[in-house]
């Protein structure tokens, strides 16, 4: 029997929530509830309103309309402190811990056990921290360890312990597995199961459907700020959920079509840039999409940055359209018609205080310049086209880019480069962290660009994406290219084995 079905009154319930920000309606009439002992997943595309909803449930935002009920009683959550007192704890993606302090100090910061004269009772604090750890059967986390030295997974466990130290009965987690390793995910799920058994309600935001099925009892889908529906995970499947999320069927996840492959656009020979690019040679042809697979740390992003002049090559040769070139800076790479969409788009891609318009045109300014000054009309055309192509949601092109939602910011960074009509496009994790709909948009655009004759080098950690989009797959390991597969020969076993360096598996696959 499922504990969730026995509880008549939900621990936390919101009804008819509406919330608008200037010019954007973030939530319209959303209802949601979480019962004791259940994990309730909240899913939806970027900008669907998930973050706004959890911020309302954590007292960060106040709703324009609607009510919040904690254990059946209407409650006002005006501040995060109100939410904490109501037994609601939220764990955000960016963990809010103090790296210089110990595990125990972090857990009890703000409500440490006191001895005489207000002095912190270190022993009692350590004992209570240890009791907390024991209650979750955690035996591999010393309470006196400095938090800054812990792995992301362990830091997250400290945050959860911190929430429990306040006797939180409702735990909200915003994409908790985004930065975790597989082993950490297993441990997190273990904790979640224990908390469920204790009667804690867990609200779980995720982009990953497989996780939703693994851990959640129910799942609620939001789309464009509206409530779409709630399902028992035992009675639904991923295609139904995807359809609810995007409101349409994605018939072909990877819309790759055959493009005419022309002459070589990029030929690199024996590129060296210590420490992670060790004598790399590769060719990318016009109309061709080359996937670059490899584990994190194998040197893929470093190779991309060497090609783009961020960290120029120490030796080796680069030819573009058959002509030998030297690329010592991104400006030179750009002048040669190379574009690069970096991996960390929040840090590397967007100038947050600038307008959407100026961000979109930033990489294309030289082509928009006539007689030395920027052609306003051409700039506007370019930006309108780029924003339209990607469906960037904004009030106007003059809106400050930093004000848009994360998903929209990413769209701006990607479209800014495509606006430049590059001959060689280097994409580093082009679809990481974006929703299913935008993902398909980006794949469709890559296909279009290839048809228009662009050469594309795509780095991706998602194997299905590499296999689905590439004409050829190159595999990188420890700074070298170790394998190459044609589209037909690129199977997940073969590419995966090459990534891992598993020689026997390689032979089997061959």
């Amino acid at each position: 029997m499922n504990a969730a079905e026995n509880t008549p009154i939900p621990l936390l319930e919101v009804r008819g929530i509406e919330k608008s920000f200037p010019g954007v309606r973030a939530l319209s009439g959303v209802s949601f509830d979480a019962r004791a002992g259940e994990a309730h997943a909240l899913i939806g595309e970027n900008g669907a309103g998930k973050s706004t909803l959890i911020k309302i449930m954590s007292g960060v935002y106040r709703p324009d309309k609607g009510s919040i009920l904690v254990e059946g009683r209407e409650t006002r959550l005006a501040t995060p402190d109100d939410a904490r007192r109501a037994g609601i704890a939220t764990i955000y993606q960016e963990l809010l811990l103090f790296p210089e302090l110990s595990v125990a100090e972090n857990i009890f910061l703000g409500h440490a056990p006191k001895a005489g004269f207000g002095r912190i009772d270190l022993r009692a604090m350590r004992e209570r921290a240890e009791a907390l750890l024991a209650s979750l059967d955690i035996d591999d986390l010393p309470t006196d360890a400095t938090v800054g030295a812990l792995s992301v997974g362990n830091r997250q466990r400290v945050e959860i312990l911190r929430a429990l130290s306040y006797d939180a009965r409702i735990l909200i987690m915003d994409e908790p597995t985004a930065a975790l390793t597989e082993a950490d995910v297993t441990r997190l799920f273990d904790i979640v199961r224990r908390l469920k058994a204790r009667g804690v309600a867990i609200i779980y935001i995720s982009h990953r459907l497989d996780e939703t099925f693994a851990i959640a009892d129910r799942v609620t889908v939001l789309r464009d700020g509206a409530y779409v529906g709630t399902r028992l995970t035992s009675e639904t499947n991923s295609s139904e959920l995807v359809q609810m999320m995007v409101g349409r069927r994605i018939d072909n996840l990877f819309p790759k079509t055959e493009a005419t492959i022309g002459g070589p656009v990029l030929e690199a020979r024996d590129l060296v840039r210590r420490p992670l690019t060790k004598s790399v040679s590769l060719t990318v042809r016009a109309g061709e999409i080359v996937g670059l697979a490899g584990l994190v740390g194998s040197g893929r992003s470093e190779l991309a940055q060497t090609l783009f002049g961020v960290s120029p090559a120490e030796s080796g040769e680069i030819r573009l359209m058959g002509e030998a070139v030297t690329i010592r800076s991104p400006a030179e790479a750009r002048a040669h018609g190379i574009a690069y969409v970096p991996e960390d788009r929040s840090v590397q891609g967007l100038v947050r205080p600038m307008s959407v318009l100026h961000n979109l045109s930033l990489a294309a300014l030289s082509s928009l310049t006539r007689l030395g000054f920027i052609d306003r009309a051409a700039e506007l055309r370019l930006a309108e086209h780029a924003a339209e192509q990607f469906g960037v949601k904004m009030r106007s092109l003059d809106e400050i880019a930093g004000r848009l939602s994360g998903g929209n910011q990413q769209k701006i960074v990607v479209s800014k480069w495509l606006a430049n009509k590059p001959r060689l496009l280097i994409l580093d994790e082009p679809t990481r962290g974006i929703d299913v709909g935008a993902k398909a948009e980006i794949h469709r655009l890559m296909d279009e660009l290839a048809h228009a004759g662009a050469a594309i080098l795509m780095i991706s950690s998602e194997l299905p994406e590499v296999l689905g989009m590439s004409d050829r797959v190159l595999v990188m390991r420890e700074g070298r290219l170790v394998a190459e597969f044609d589209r037909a020969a690129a199977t997940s076993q073969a590419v995966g084995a090459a990534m891992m360096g598993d020689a026997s598996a390689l032979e089997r696959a061959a």
Partner: protein
Amino acid sequence: MSAIALFRAPAGRATLWRRFFTQETLLAGAIIGLAVVVGLINPRFLAANNLADILLGNAYVAVAAIGMSMVIITGNIDISVGALIGVLATVSGSLAVAGAPIVVTWLAPLVLGVAVMGLQGVIVAYVGVPAIVVTLGMLSILKGGLISVTGGKWITDLPVAFHLADIEIFGFIPMPVAIMVGATAVAAVWMRWWPRGRAIYAIGGNAEAARLSGVSPRRTLVLVFALHGFFAGIAALLFATQLRVIQSTTPSGLEFTIITAAVVGGVSILGGVGTVVGATLAAVLIAEITSALVFINVSPFWTHAVQGTLILATVIADIERRRRRLAGAAR
């Protein structure tokens, strides 16, 4: 797709209102409002020659604030500019007294200003020393060097032709005002419609993103410092030629007034935001306030307190704006 059309229609009014309600219109309103209020208290404040004095005597602050705005928009700061203006004025005046051709006396501060500021730009951009440290060092060097060399004595007997500030264009536009308006307009247009001008905002907002977009943050930074030196050179000329004598010391607190003008003009101390039009208007407002204090019988010693209050209020408002913007963005 309809995303743009959808979100543009209801935004029209708000955007129009916001376009009008900028830091610049606010400052223009404050300049006029203050004149009216002080004029009611003491009508002599509004006399033509007083208003002219306010503009003529402070045009050099506005000109220096142009370069300062650019430097602050890149996310840097310069506290050596006041001392530099003192040095450049002294060099220019000494050359004039020594009988150098007038053209040389006018060009020397410009060239020297570009050289000194350009050097500081190189140290900031290529060596990676924080601008506040570099310019603090330069401030000491210039200040100490000047007083050691000149002993602080006054430069007098300047040739009549030297007095650039006395020239009137078309016989009625005083040179300081013409330069202030002209330099502001040229800088504003350049920063908005020239790629390198746009780059100033980009590197101040996110240097890494700018670099990956093909903008060189280092070269842009050196250029900005060099331009700042050029404007400081012009400011020094206006400063040197407005009176019949030059006191060969560094004007105390001048850098503070110039930074105040930039910040009150809407240049964000955090970088990436601001206009030179705002900075020039703020320089005029500050000059007006200083003069107004005299006309309503408040001790001029309050000037600095008023400037300090203005700068604090502006920065607090700026940070508050960013905070709200951030809250609105997290969706």
